[in-house]
């Protein structure tokens, strides 16, 4: 009989039990003692049936070992020593329905955050400066028509407004929303609206408009005054905390239909994730807070590297544990990073691409060029057509062909690839000058983070199964 080996998987423990995350299927199985002992025995080596029997039949009985081996082989946790056939590289069916269109309604901003990817040291040359400073109403309308057409059969489309500082072009935002409502109604579709803002321009009438029109709002904010004022400053250098705080509080008090989220950029000077989270949720009142390290070239002094990632991971873990405690109690916890990852684990997503950019999500620059995502809007090298001329199918096909996980050889042996798929294209562009490259600078961090989320997921599956049911409702059938 030929020897058996363990296939690619990541094992972890939770709630006193043993689990396996299988790769590339992204299935999570709970293992009983026999299955766990078999996988332990096969850790890093191959054994024949007979060897496994002689090692384990005493403890679990020959029939029990055989039965478990069959199950493990069938779910492809075990296989022969022959190298496994690679998963065929399948490109998504196109035209792929567009789900989200991000309009960069302006490339101007009233803040000048040093880490900004649009204007800071790591900007894409020309992306934010070559086009017009503000999107025109005509372009915004053309973008809405483009979105409704490209959304295909889908009954809902999402329109997101972005900048620069989005609210610097409020008139176009308003007219685009009115036009999208009208066109969508004529086509029997509906459109959701959301936007990101630095909150400096949230006046009473703006807040009223956003609340009345059900526009989801994400606020870019870095945390308490000392942290926020470190990077998020006006052009003269003055910090923005005192300006935005009352406006955000006013927005949170008025705009209740949507959870208003905070989006935090982490740098080496602001690694105190827990303190930032506490401040934003408890003192300001945000319902959700998401964190992301600043996207920078490696040489910037605020770029998070090695030990910085470990420190962030430690605090992410602590917050995720807290999320677990809250979830077990049936209470809301606003750490959105953990929620997003739990959803992906729950669905068992095994992604060929890190995100929907270039596929279900596209960005539009102020002049109407369509790009991979909002972060690439305006960059000629990442142009995928225009709102007037439609999607450049050839460029899109080339990008999808070249960015597929099968092309990322560095990822081919990593167990985290079903969730990570190489990470953010824009981050890769900033680090390596190539959007198609995997982000090797944060592999350890991603693996550590997904490991933590797997533990929390399995713990909830055992101790609070109804949480998984709620996830089911959230992610849909």
């Amino acid at each position, binding site marked *: 009989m030929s020897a058996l080996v363990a296939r690619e998987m990541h094992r972890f423990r939770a709630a006193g039990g043993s689990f396996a995350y299988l790769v590339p299927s992204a*299935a*999570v*199985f*709970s293992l*009983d003692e*026999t299955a766990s002992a078999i996988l332990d025995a096969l850790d890093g080596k191959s054994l024949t049936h007979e060897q496994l029997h002689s090692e384990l039949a005493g403890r679990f009985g020959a029939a*029990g070992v055989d039965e*478990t081996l069959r199950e493990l082989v069938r779910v492809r946790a075990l296989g022969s020593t022959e190298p496994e056939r690679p998963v065929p590289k399948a490109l998504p069916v196109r035209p792929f329905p567009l789900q989200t269109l991000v309009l960069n309604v302006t490339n101007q901003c009233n803040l000048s955050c040093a880490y900004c990817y649009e204007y800071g040291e790591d900007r894409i040359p020309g992306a934010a400066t070559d086009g017009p400073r503000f999107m025109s109403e005509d372009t915004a309308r053309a973008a809405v028509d483009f979105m409704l057409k490209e959304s295909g059969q889908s009954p809902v489309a999402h329109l997101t407004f972005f900048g620069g500082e989005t609210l610097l072009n409020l008139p176009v935002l308003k007219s685009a929303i009115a036009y999208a409502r009208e066109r969508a109604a004529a086509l029997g579709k509906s459109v959701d609206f959301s936007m990101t803002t630095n909150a400096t321009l949230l006046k009473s009438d703006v807040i009223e408009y956003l609340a009345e029109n059900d526009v989801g709002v994400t606020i870019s904010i870095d945390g308490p005054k000392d942290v926020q004022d470190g990077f998020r400053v006006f052009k003269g250098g003055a910090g923005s905390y005192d300006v935005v705080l009352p406006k955000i509080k006013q927005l949170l008090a008025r705009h209740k239909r949507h959870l208003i989220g905070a989006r935090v950029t982490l740098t080496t000077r602001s690694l105190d994730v827990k303190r930032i989270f506490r401040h934003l949720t408890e003192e300001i009142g945000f319902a959700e807070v998401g964190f992301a390290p600043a996207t920078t070239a490696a040489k910037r002094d605020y770029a998070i590297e090695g030990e910085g990632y470990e420190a962030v991971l430690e605090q992410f873990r602590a917050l995720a544990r807290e999320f677990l405690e809250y979830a077990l109690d049936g209470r809301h916890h606003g750490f959105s990073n953990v929620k997003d990852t739990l959803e992906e684990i729950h669905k*068992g997503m095994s992604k060929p691409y890190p995100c929907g950019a270039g596929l279900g999500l596209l960005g539009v620059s102020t002049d109407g060029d369509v790009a991979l995502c909002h972060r690439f809007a305006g960059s000629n090298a990442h142009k995928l057509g225009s709102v007037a001329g439609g999607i450049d199918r050839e460029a899109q096909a080339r990008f999808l062909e070249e960015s597929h996980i099968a092309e990322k050889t560095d990822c081919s042996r990593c167990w985290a690839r079903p969730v990570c798929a190489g990470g953010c294209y824009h981050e890769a562009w900033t680090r390596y000058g190539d959007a198609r490259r995997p982000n090797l600078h944060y592999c350890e961090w991603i693996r550590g983070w997904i490991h933590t989320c797997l533990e929390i997921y399995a713990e909830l599956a055992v101790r609070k199964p109804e949480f998984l049911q709620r996830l089911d409702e959230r992610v849909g059938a």
Partner: protein
Amino acid sequence: MKHLRPVNRKAALIEQQLGQEHAPAGEVVALQDPTQPGPHVPLGCSLVFFPGWEVDRNGGTAGLCQPVERDLFDCHIGCFWPAQVPDQLNYAPDWTAKCAAAQKDWRKIDLIFP
């Protein structure tokens, strides 16, 4: 499964799929009954709508694939089905000489001895 328990949705799908593999419906038959559980796979020539189940090689319905004797002629000539027949170009050119109409005369086909 007794020793593995699916936790996430993907694992549940895998278990469901494996359960179907063991069902008697797993047997593959021509013109599969679509009411059987599991995916309905139309087998045979109909996959390409070439001489097959819907039309014959002349576009009519007189010579559809169903009778086994059609293996002797159509499947390996007009279609791509790899029916095993003698080498009629070199070795046994007169193999079917007495068989004018396969449905009636197929018994008259000679045995071929190497």
